[in-house]
């Protein structure tokens, strides 16, 4: 019998993996990719709660999350292209003008 806890633990593990990716990756594109993992961990727990509480609102929220994720990716990738065009790199160790 698969309970809500199984899904919550899976979602937590996915979130942790994504967080590790954000912290350790130095490529801006791959950081964005790890953010996608976080989005999906949140989506999974939304859907799991929708199922186990018997309320479809969770699924509607996942729909909204996807829209936000799509916008975030469009803008984020545009920023990445712009960064690459100006700095010739995507390494976040070298993009440090704000870190003085």
């Amino acid at each position: 019998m698969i309970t809500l806890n199984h899904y919550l633990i899976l979602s937590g593990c996915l979130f942790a993996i994504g967080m590790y990716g954000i912290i350790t990756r130095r490529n801006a594109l791959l950081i964005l990719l790890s953010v996608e993992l976080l989005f999906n961990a949140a989506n999974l727990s939304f859907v799991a709660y929708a199922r186990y509480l018997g309320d479809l609102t969770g699924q509607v929220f996942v729909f909204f999350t996807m829209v936000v994720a799509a916008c975030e990716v469009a803008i984020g990738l545009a920023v990445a292209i712009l960064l690459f065009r100006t700095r010739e790199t995507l390494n976040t160790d070298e993009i440090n003008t704000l870190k003085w």
Partner: protein
Amino acid sequence: MNEAFFFYLFSGLTLLAALYVVFTKNPTYAVLSLVAAMFSLAILFVLLHAYFIAVVHVLVYAGAILVLFLFVVMLLGVGREEPASKSQRLYRIFGGFVVVGFLLEIGLIIKAVSSSAQESPTILAGTIEAVGKLLFTEYFLPFEITSVLLLVGIVGAVVLSRREQMPAEGQYLPGKAAEGGRSKQV
């Protein structure tokens, strides 16, 4: 029993793919591995009776978002390995601490709330009809606002990735465009 089997199979697949996304050196492989993770997540959504969400998930994530990612990775030519930096070890250690702390926290929270929502769920299928009805009645205003958000996304992406033009000749200057073309233009 079948549900348990599929749950463990596809949650394992999802976790493996996610780990590969985080640990592989090659950005192209990372994106492709995330596609695999999205597909197995969609199957988990089907197990949770969220059929509409599962389909949209495959279409939007695997179909649109990750293809966009792949396109940019190949366009920028960052498909080669990341250079190993000196600070990498420090980040790894810090990341390890954060992850362990986070997992402990999640475990404690799940233990604390596990009695509230459990067992014998009412089967509530997230078909297109059911989700659509909710989306167009109760959540109609947020639904309309998402279209504004998408418009903002489109305009933002176009404005950001547009190359600046020199006013006189009106020709593209790819190399020089970034250096302050905006101030020169006016």
